[in-house]
């Protein structure tokens, strides 16, 4: 008995010791800065002088800041790429799941943009969107369409960034769907076929519900990722684009914090972003709970 309790005491100590580094990392590099961000958002922090408490003033300013509204609208608008990407990725995964020749090669090819450096592909797409010599307009020329100067036009800059984002992320989403499809048992389809269900019916009643957890996962991670979009605009439109039409929230935070040293104001935006992501994740958890009730 004594030996056992002694063993357990040792296990307690070592168990805690082994998780200490990540726990300390969490406290020092995430929780403490987060609390500081929240505190900073209520101050006129400029990074140099004293931090004076100014209440909700920063948030009131956000409410009437036209550039912030633009950045927020742009960020949300670019999330239109999420349903486009999901649809294309699911179609691709369905195609690949039928065991056509070259499946492995296709998987690799579609995944290459995912592992490619975002900075490098941003540079490449920026050049591809060039109005006169870019690859995109030369391609459109084949169909007799004369394309715009994509990045310099406030109406095309966001669609251009959406196309690029879909291209970049498609392989990842496709891979998740492919893994999900492969875990759906064939017997469901066989039973449906016996019942006389056609291809679309068995997709709608079997495949789509079965991949629903993955769809949720993709939507949530994409919204979280999409709300933090930054690198593309920083490289492709360093000034925020025509009439600030491509600036994102993080782009604006970055500009305010490290360009204008309005740390308090930038913190308020960062807190706003954090709350947004928290709410999105919360909704997902709620929906997942509901879903498991459905299954029961």
């Amino acid at each position, binding site marked *: 008995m004594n030996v056992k309790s002694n063993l357990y005491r040792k296990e307690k100590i070592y168990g805690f010791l082994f998780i200490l580094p990540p726990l300390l990392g969490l406290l020092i590099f995430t929780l403490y800065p987060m609390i500081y961000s929240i505190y900073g958002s209520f101050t006129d922090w400029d990074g140099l002088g004293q931090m004076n408490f100014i209440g909700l003033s920063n948030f009131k300013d956000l409410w009437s800041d036209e550039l912030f509204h633009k950045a927020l609208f742009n960020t949300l608008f670019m999330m239109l790429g999420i349903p486009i990407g999901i649809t294309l990725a699911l179609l691709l995964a369905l195609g690949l799941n039928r065991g056509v020749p070259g499946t492995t090669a296709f998987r690799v090819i579609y995944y290459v943009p995912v592992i490619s450096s975002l900075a490098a592909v941003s540079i*490449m797409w920026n050049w591809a969107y060039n109005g006169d010599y870019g690859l995109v307009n030369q391609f459109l020329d084949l169909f007799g369409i004369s394309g715009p100067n994509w990045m310099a036009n406030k109406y095309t800059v966001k669609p251009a960034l959406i196309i690029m984002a879909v291209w970049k992320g498609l392989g990842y989403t496709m891979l998740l769907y492919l893994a999900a499809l492969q875990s759906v048992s064939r017997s469901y389809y066989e039973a449906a076929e016996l019942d006389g269900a056609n291809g679309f019916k068995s997709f709608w009643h079997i495949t789509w519900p079965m991949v629903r957890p993955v769809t949720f996962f993709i939507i949530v991670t994409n919204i979280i990722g999409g709300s933090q979009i930054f690198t593309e605009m920083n490289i492709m439109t360093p000034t925020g684009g025509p009439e600030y039409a491509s600036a994102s929230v993080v782009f604006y935070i970055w500009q305010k914090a490290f360009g204008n040293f309005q740390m308090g104001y930038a913190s308020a935006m960062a807190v706003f972003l954090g709350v947004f992501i928290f709410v999105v994740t919360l909704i997902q958890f709620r929906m997942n709970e509901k879903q498991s009730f459905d299954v029961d």
Partner: protein
Amino acid sequence: MNMTSRRRVTHSIIFVLLLIGAVFMIGPLLWMLSTSFKDKQDVFALPPVWIPRPFHFDKYSEIWEAGPLLSGIKNSLIIAVTVTIVGTFTSSLAAFSFAKLRFPGKNKIFLLMLSSLMIPYPAVMIPQFFMFSKLGWIDTLLPLIVPGLFGNIVMIFFLRQYLSSVPNAIIEAAKIDGSSYFRLYSSITFPLIKPAVAAQLILWFMGIWNDYLSPIIYLNSPEKQTLQLVIANFNATYAIQTDYPLIMAASIIALLPMLIIFLVFQKQIIESVAISGVKG
């Protein structure tokens, strides 16, 4: 039409559609590669030239003088290698503890860590910047290295899940034999989870290599910058001179290492990504 020939027709249609899609996925990257071999005038040729005649390799020798590309590679390597090696050790040790050891508050701490994944980097980057600025670490690689040494919560989560398939009996038996807790980790658990560790390590390495936001905050002087910043500066500098072959050559250099790693380890990477998605 009978069943098999109908299936053959649908297969062929799907194959062709996938092929067209593949052209769109890889086309822009091939165009980037082809541009890097062109001379400055060919870049503006209409219709576009896909296979440059002749091939110019001189941009690939020119880029090393045109900007601090070599020090960019070196800095990126220092950060990524240090963080992934030390961070993988701390992460896997913690995953072992979370999965196989008993201590009070374990599950609460684990949940706390998981929920911290919801906190986006932009929400903490401003105070972090001031922490490191007080330490005098701005324009050094330290702010990009030190936080990673403490481990990676995604990796801990993934390895903990993976460890649940390792039977407790092996560990219990070794415990009774009087093996130390660190030995339980190093000579029993770690060898068993090596493939999962490798896949996670590669994914993390790629993430650090391709990171842009944190380096741009901390690094100012050209010789301190990571590769991603260096090529972004190439773009800003040489686009005015319309030297696209040079820019594209530098970008290819930034892509190539990850592309090679991916092609070598594609099976493990794809599996690891697929598992983490399906299990949520």
